[in-house]
């Protein structure tokens, strides 16, 4: 158990270190995030104002917090659906993954989580900085939401990596998975609350979103960090995240076991 934890830590660190070598890409990502952030400011602020300054519990300051926190997490939570696993199945490099005395799911997820944690530094924090300094946003004044919020962010990032891994195992059967990836990108963004907070959804769509793991990836960490949900409510959200974490881990585990039997790596 201790050895496993140590290996996991090492893999997370390797992902973190790898990601840290792509500094220019991180800057590019930040610029894109910020641009879309200002676009969201224009649209969602107008919406709140049109509703008379308050909309489903959001005013301009809390909406700003939602926008800049969610934009900041965009570089870390996998809502694009690209998976290292499918690429490695396609190229045959997955051979190397199976050669290691490691759980393949664990190693993929751990290094993606590491890379995502790094992205919080050049993309997450500056985005929140823009929100605080340039636009102004509501922030909780007790330490609790920040602490639980950070835990929730880590859970959300891990969940994203697990979901994309599980979907990525389709590569064992399909090889070409670009269609699935595009579908994931559209659906996950919407249901995770990237475009608008899921609190603004019509009741039926909200119920549908809550029956998927996507809000746990982005919306719930943002709700906790911004203090929109607090106390017992925030613990409940973390509980929901853990539930999805367990479920998607199991799904990925069994899909890997089944997919391995389908694996065909010819040549090389």
């Amino acid at each position, binding site marked *: 158990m201790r050895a496993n934890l140590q290996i996991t830590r090492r893999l997370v660190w390797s992902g973190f270190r790898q990601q840290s070598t792509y500094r220019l890409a991180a800057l590019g990502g930040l610029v894109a995030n910020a641009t879309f952030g200002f676009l969201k400011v224009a649209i969602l602020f107008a919406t709140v104002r049109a509703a008379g300054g308050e909309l489903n519990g959001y005013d301009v300051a809390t909406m700003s917090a939602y926008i800049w926190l969610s934009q900041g997490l965009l570089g870390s939570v996998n809502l694009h659906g690209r998976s290292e696993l499918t690429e490695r199945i396609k190229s045959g490099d997955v051979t*190397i993954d*199976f050669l290691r005395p490691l759980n393949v799911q664990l190693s993929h997820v751990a290094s993606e989580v590491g890379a995502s944690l790094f992205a919080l530094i050049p993309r997450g924090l500056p985005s929140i900085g823009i929100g605080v300094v340039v636009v102004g946003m509501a922030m909780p004044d007790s330490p609790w939401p920040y602490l639980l919020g950070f835990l929730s962010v880590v859970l959300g990032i891990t969940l994203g990596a697990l979901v994309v891994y599980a979907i990525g195992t389709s590569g064992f059967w399909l090889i070409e998975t670009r269609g699935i990836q595009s579908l994931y990108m559209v659906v996950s963004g919407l249901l995770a609350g990237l475009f608008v907070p899921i609190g603004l959804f019509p009741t039926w769509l909200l119920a549908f979103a809550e029956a998927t793991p996507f809000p746990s990836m982005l919306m719930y960490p943002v709700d906790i960090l911004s203090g929109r949900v607090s106390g017992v409510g925030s613990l409940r959200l973390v509980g929901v995240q853990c539930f999805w974490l367990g479920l998607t881990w199991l799904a990925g585990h069994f899909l890997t076991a089944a997919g391995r039997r389908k694996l065909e790596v010819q040549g*090389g």
Partner: protein
Amino acid sequence: MSPIIETQGLTREFALRGRGLRRTRLTAVDDLTFTIDPGEAVGYIGANGAGKSTTIKMLCGILVPTNGTVSTCGLRPVEDRVKLARRVGVVFGQRSQLWWDLPVEESFRILASIHRLPKTQEKARTEELVDCLEMADYLATPVRQLSLGQRMRAEVSAALLHSPDLVILDEPTIGLDVLSKQRLREFLVDERERHGTTLMLTTHDMGDIERLCERVLVVDHGRLAFDGTIGGLSRTVGAQRVLVVDLAEPTPDLVDVPGTTHLGSESRGLQQRFAFDAEQLTAAQALAAVSQRAEVRDLSIEEPDIEDVVRRVYASSR
């Protein structure tokens, strides 16, 4: 002593997508039965597409056999993959197991922790490998900036870091220059002497086989076509080397050099070609014998082409 590798009727088929929805089956490995004992050094050769890599992937539990059984290090590869991975080191010449963006030494550290090496063992083994393969100069360089020769040495080290009982090298010298090849071969010979490692090697380079292996398995269209010693292989196919000499002045054909067969001359005898059996005559002896008869200005040795060897094995086994 129980064998370290044992296969029984090992078979693997792949589905091939043909035109439209038509699918055909390709048998990459066909009813393969062989055993390898601990400490042996075995060359596993065959033409492209003969099924070499597929066999190796089944030995390591990466691919699931369609039929037959395989046991590696006394384990069932597919079921005991993780356990087996601690005892086998594999280099696939075409794929990297290093962390592309990180310094070489960082990859070694990650692998050491994956293999749960104790700190002292990690340090000693890393130092040994860095020393033997002369990697000290580029340990801090990111893998993506290494030359091919440097990277191959790092790959081999990565596969051997956990001191595996069984080392499988799939095309380890592909694309390497003569010097890098030589260095890698010397290292592998040393490594076997020191640790008694079992070695299985696929290659397109006859030189690798001659310098590293005692036994050869030849596979053709997924089937075993030859299993025996290097000497036996030479006898079976008459694998001969060719000595090409450039002479100082035009010379009549030197047909009387002992132990060689005169193959032909060019430019009025300025360049002559001799075949000789490496088992009976060294290249130096052949050269000396030629030098007694004419002044040699330049020379080269042509090694038998592995594709050619396989073709001849196949022809002689019919």
